[in-house]
């Protein structure tokens, strides 16, 4: 590897010594090229790190966050949901997924242009990002496609059959995720922020990632039914310690998710980084204080749940809002998701095991709408000086956001229900009662999370 750099260096030296004196024109055009490479190096450095951070959100981040929340006997099966998607989604993405999301197609789905990653190389694709290799964009987007179905697993943890889970998430990626990603981010997509029919702002995936996964989670929870014993038997998290570690890694990784969505390392990335951090902080406080008042004690689980709710809600807004609106969005998300999870869920009585709907579905919806309120051209002037959100003087944007929300809800509701029906037929989706009692680690995977005997 190092040899290559050496050669280049030699060439450079050679060039500068041999060609006695390059003309200024020569020097100018050399400079233009090398400044483009330099820019690419900076932006690409940031985007490769961002891609790594987003992968880290799924594994170990989400795997720990969810793994800690289940009972000891289901910890591995829950971590497996996250981990195996790191593998499965990757292969789908390479074969067809990237193309269906980001290839040129119709407003609803991409074409086959990039199938098998053909045409996805080291040169930038200016349709998406002019200063990083197209492959970087592809692999960065892959990391989003991995975490989205993994988020759903919070709703079916502790009771879904492994084969059913594999089939379901594969189909779900094709039927729900890829179209939604194309509509919002793909070239010519229906909801594109600049050229779409409904110009919807979704910087890093409020609709594409969180609404789709959160709403699908609700459908899964309802379809699969409650875990045995829920809610009359206590099902406490087996390790809030692990979940706390997971939440911290999610927080850190989310910088790659949101600030990385600037697709470059310029001031917009910084702005999104700051909004993300502020949103998370405010939401952790929001949930904690609400809990302290309502339940009497502020808990670690509350604080980490809040931070995740804030990160979810700030996701669509992160590249469009200033720091203090980010704090407002975070606070709102912390309080609303707290009420959702502790009050509304109890009332309706569905068993969303790890609150994927309460946090991602509700937080994502709230964030998508508040993006319409707080988006401002002074942060990200997408429309060449025209006002963007309500505070910017464009109240109509809220409607656009609602359209985006409705489409993602509808697609997730219908898609997930139909797919569960199909999977139920083909592989079954729920484990047998005795398998559930024994725990999925043993019944599905033949192993245990811990052997702590001396």
């Amino acid at each position, binding site marked *: 590897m190092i040899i290559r750099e050496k050669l280049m260096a030699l060439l450079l030296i050679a060039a500068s010594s041999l060609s006695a004196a390059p003309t200024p024109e020569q020097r100018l055009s050399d400079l233009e090229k090398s400044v483009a490479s330099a820019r690419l190096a900076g932006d690409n450095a940031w985007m490769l790190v961002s891609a790594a951070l987003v992968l880290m959100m799924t594994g170990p981040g989400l795997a720990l966050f969810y793994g800690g929340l289940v009972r000891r006997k289901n910890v591995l099966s829950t971590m497996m949901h996250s981990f195996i998607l790191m593998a499965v989604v990757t292969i789908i993405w390479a074969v067809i997924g990237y193309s269906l999301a980001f290839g040129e197609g119709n407003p609803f789905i991409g074409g086959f242009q990039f199938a098998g990653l053909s045409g996805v190389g080291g040169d930038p694709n200016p349709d998406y990002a002019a200063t990083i290799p197209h492959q970087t964009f592809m692999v960065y987007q892959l990391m989003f496609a991995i975490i989205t179905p993994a988020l759903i697993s919070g709703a079916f943890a502790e009771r879904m059959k492994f084969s059913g889970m594999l089939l379901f998430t594969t189909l779900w990626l094709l039927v729900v995720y890829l179209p939604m990603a194309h509509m919002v981010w793909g070239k010519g997509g229906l909801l594109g922020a600049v050229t779409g029919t409904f110009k919807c702002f979704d910087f890093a995936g409020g609709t594409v990632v969180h609404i789709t996964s959160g709403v699908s989670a609700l459908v899964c929870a309802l379809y699969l039914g409650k875990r045995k014993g829920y809610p009359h038997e206590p099902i406490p998290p087996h390790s809030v310690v692990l979940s706390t570690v997971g939440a911290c890694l999610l927080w850190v990784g989310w910088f790659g998710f949101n600030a990385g969505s600037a697709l470059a390392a310029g001031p917009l990335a910084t702005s999104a980084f700051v909004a993300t951090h502020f949103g998370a902080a405010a939401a952790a406080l929001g949930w904690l204080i609400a809990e302290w008042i309502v339940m009497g*004690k502020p808990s670690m689980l509350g604080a980490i749940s809040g931070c995740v709710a804030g990160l979810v809600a700030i996701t669509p807004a992160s590249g469009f809002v200033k720091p203090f609106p980010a704090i407002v969005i975070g606070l709102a998300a912390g309080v609303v998701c707290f009420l959702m999870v*502790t009050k509304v869920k109890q009332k309706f009585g569905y068993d969303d095991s790890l609150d994927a709907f309460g946090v991602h579905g509700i937080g994502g919806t709230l964030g998508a709408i508040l993006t319409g309120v707080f988006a401002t051209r002074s942060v990200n002037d997408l429309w060449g000086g025209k006002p963007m959100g309500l505070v910017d003087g464009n109240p109509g944007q809220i409607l656009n956001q609602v359209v985006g929300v409705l489409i993602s809800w509808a697609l997730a509701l219908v898609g997930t229900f139909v797919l569960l029906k199909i999977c139920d037929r083909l592989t079954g989706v729920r484990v047998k009662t005795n398998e559930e009692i024994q725990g999925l680690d043993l019944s599905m995977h033949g192993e245990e999370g811990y052997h702590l005997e001396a």
Partner: protein
Amino acid sequence: MKKIEAIIQPHKLDDVKDALKAIGIDGMTVTEVRGHGRQKGHKEVYRGQEYMVDLLPKVKFEVIVSAGRESEVVQAITGAARTGAIGDGKIFIYDVADVIRIRNDDRGEMAI
């Protein structure tokens, strides 16, 4: 021979152990258990889901002694474990039919 089984508060473990050693009792076996009695449990809340924990952590001491030392051992334990509050625990006494030392097949009192 008698088995003296005491259920005590976990934070009294060291005190009881030391009290026993102080009166020359060296053999003892300790188990982590959970107990329910008059002591009220505590509430834990996870994401709004409250539940009462009414099995509280306790420590069980088992000490096998010759019948003659029974009351002395009981006194050592109560002395060390008592705080006067509900939840201090209980002592149960049983007859022991025989004792064998695995190392050398010693039997009965000799094996204690």
